[in-house]
C-alpha cells in the first residue's frame, strides 16, 4: 500500500470532491481516495501491484482536473 498526494489546480466547485473520490475509489487497487478541497489536493492510498500512480493521475485528468505535481 502506498499513499500519494497530487496537487491540482485550485478547485472551485465542491462537486468535484464527489466526482474525483467516486471515480478513483472505484478503481481496482485503490483503497482510499480523499479530495482535500481547500488545499486542492488528492490523497490516494493504493496497492502498487494493482494500479500505478500514472493511472490514477490519468483518471483525475480525464475528469477535467489537470494535475500540477
Amino acid at each position: 500500500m502506498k499513499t500519494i498526494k497530487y496537487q491540482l489546480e485550485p478547485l472551485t466547485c465542491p462537486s468535484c470532491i464527489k466526482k474525483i473520490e467516486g471515480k478513483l475509489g472505484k478503481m481496482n487497487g485503490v483503497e482510499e481516495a480523499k479530495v482535500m478541497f481547500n488545499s486542492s489536493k488528492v490523497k490516494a492510498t493504493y496497492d502498487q501491484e494493482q494500479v500505478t500512480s500514472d493511472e490514477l493521475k490519468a483518471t483525475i485528468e480525464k475528469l477535467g482536473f489537470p494535475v500540477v505535481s
Partner: protein
Amino acid sequence: MRKVKRVHVVITSGSLLILAFLFHLIDMSVWKDITLIAATFIAGYFIAKKAIQTTMMKAFSIELLVTIAVIGALSIGEYVESAAVTFLFLFGAYLEARTLEKTRSSLQTLMGMAPMEATVLENGERIVKPIRDIDTGDHILIQTGEKVAIDGKIISGQAFINESTITGESILANKNIEDQVFSGTMIDHGYVEVEAEKVGDDTAFSKIIELVEEAQESKAKTQKFLDRFANVYTPGILVLSILVLIVTQNFELSITFLVIACPGALVISTPVSLVAGIGNGAKNGTLMKGGEIIENLAKIDVLVFDKTGTLTKGEPEMTGVKAYDRGESELLTMTAEAEIISEHHLGRAIVKEAKRRGLPLLNEPEEFTLDKGHGLCATIDGQSVVIGNRKLLRKNEIELPLTVETYAIDEEEKGNTAIFVGINEKLAGVISIADQIRQEATSAMQHLKDAGIKQTVMLTGDNKHTAEKVATQLGIDDVFAEMLPEDKVNHVQHLKVEGYNVSMVGDGVNDAPAIAAADVGMAMGAAGTDAAMETADVVLMTDKLDKIPYAYTLAKATVRNMKQNIFIAVGTVALLLAGVLVGEIFLASGMFIHELSVLMVILNAIRLVGYKQRRRVKQKQRRTNTAVI
C-alpha cells in the same frame, strides 16, 4: 498557462458581448447575432469540453446542464441568452477561483515559507542539499536571512530568530547553544550550526501544515447538515424541474430552473468561512483543528486553567530556605541530590539553585519512590529523605511543629509554594519556591470576560494559599487547590454535567486527561511537543495566554460568518426560484445573480482572513483611560 488562457477567453467573450451591444445600438442586427454566436462558441467550447469529459467518465456535472441550456438557447435563436450564459459561467468560475485563493491564502503563505534546501557541513565542507536529502544527525549551517530547514539543537553560534511561522509572534527570539530551532523560522541576524533532529515530514512545521490542511477539510456540524440537505435538495430540484417541464411544456424554463437551483453558494457557504477562520488562526499562532471544534469553541462558557506552566511561567525559582537542626547548605544539598532524578518542575528549581550556589551534589539517591501529586521519598547517604507537601510528610509520620506550620503558611500567603523536607523521620526544613505569573495573564482573563466567558476556574496541585493568591491577582472566579490529575478530570466532567460548555487549558503533559475530557481541549506551547499537538483540539503555538481570547473571538466571528453565508445562499436560491416561477428571471439574469451570491459568500469569508481581535483597540482605550486617571 491554462489560467492565462481562461482569462483570455473571459476577456474575449466579454469584449464580443460589448461589441454586440454596440451593433445593437447602431441597428446592425446581423452583425450583432454573428458576434453573439462567436462569443457563445468561444466561451462555450471550454464548458462543452469539460461537460463531454465528465460525461465520458459517466459523471454528472453542472457544465453538462449549461451546455444543454446553451444548445437549447441557440436552437431557438436566443443568442443574447446563450452568449451571456457562457460568458457569465466562465467569468464566475474565474472570479470564484481568484477569490477562493484569498480565503486559502493564509495556508499558502505558510507553505511558501517551507525552505527547499539547506547548507550541510560535511567534513568541514559546505554542501547545499535539497531538504529531502538531509538526514537526522546532519550538521546544518544557517546564516543571516536564511530559513531553517529542520528541527534541531544549536551546537554552535548564536542568532536572533523570527519564529512567527510557528508561533505567530514576530518578536525576535535570541537563541544560543543548546536552544531548539524549528523548521520554517528565519534567522534575522546571526549564525548557527544546528544538529538535525527532525527532518522532512517530521518537523513541527510540516506537522502544523498538515494539521491545518486536515483541519480545513474537517467539517463543522452545520456543514454536515448542509451536505445532508444538499443530498435531498439536488434530487428534489431535479424532480421539480421535470414537473415544471410537464406542467408548462417549456423546456427553457425547466432548464433555467435546474441551472439556477444548483446549490453552489450553499455548498460553499460554510467551508469558505471555516477555511478563512482556520487559516487566520494558524497564521496568528492558534491552531484550531477543524470546523466542529470552531463551533464548540464559540459556545464555551467556562474556561478551566491549570496553574503551573499555564497561568504561571512554569519556571519556578527558589525564593527562600529555612533549615531546622542543620545548616542551610547541607539541607539544600541533600534535597537537591534527592531531586536530581525527578522531572518535577519544583524539584528542578531546587537543583538549579543548589548548582547556582556551587554546592557539590555527589550522592546518588537510592530507594527512590515518587508519590504523584505529593512529592518523593529517597535515601541519601544512608539517611531517609522525604520531600513534598504536608500530606506526604504526615503520611510518613513526620510531625509539623506549630512554628513550622506558621512559617509555611506565611510563605504561602506571600505566593510561594512551601516544600517540606523531612530527614530521618524528623522535619528538617522548608523550602519556598515561587513561580512568576505570566505577564499577559491578567489582561487575558479580562478579555475573556469581555468576550463573553461566564466563568473562569483554576485547578492546581499546589497548596490552597498560593492558589488563592494567584487567583485573586488574576481575577479568576473559582479556585480548587491540592488537586491530583484525576481530580481535575472529575472537576471538568462535573462542570459538563452541570450543563456548561467547558474548555480546559493546560500545558499538555500532566493535564492531558483533563484536556481530553473537556468539550474543547487547549494545549499551550506546542512547538516541539507532538503529543500536545495531537491530543488537544486547539493548540496555542506560543506560550502566550492572550492567544486564548484571540482563538475564542475568532471562533465566534467564524461561526457568525458561517451563519451570514448560509443566509445569503439560502435567501438567493429562494428568491431566484420564485423569480423563475413567476417569469421575472431568465437564464442569463439568473446565472448572474447566482454567481453574484457565490462571490458574495466568498467575499464575506475573506473578511475573516484579515480578522484582528478588537480587544487591541479596547486595550489601547483602557491604557489611555488609565493614563488620564
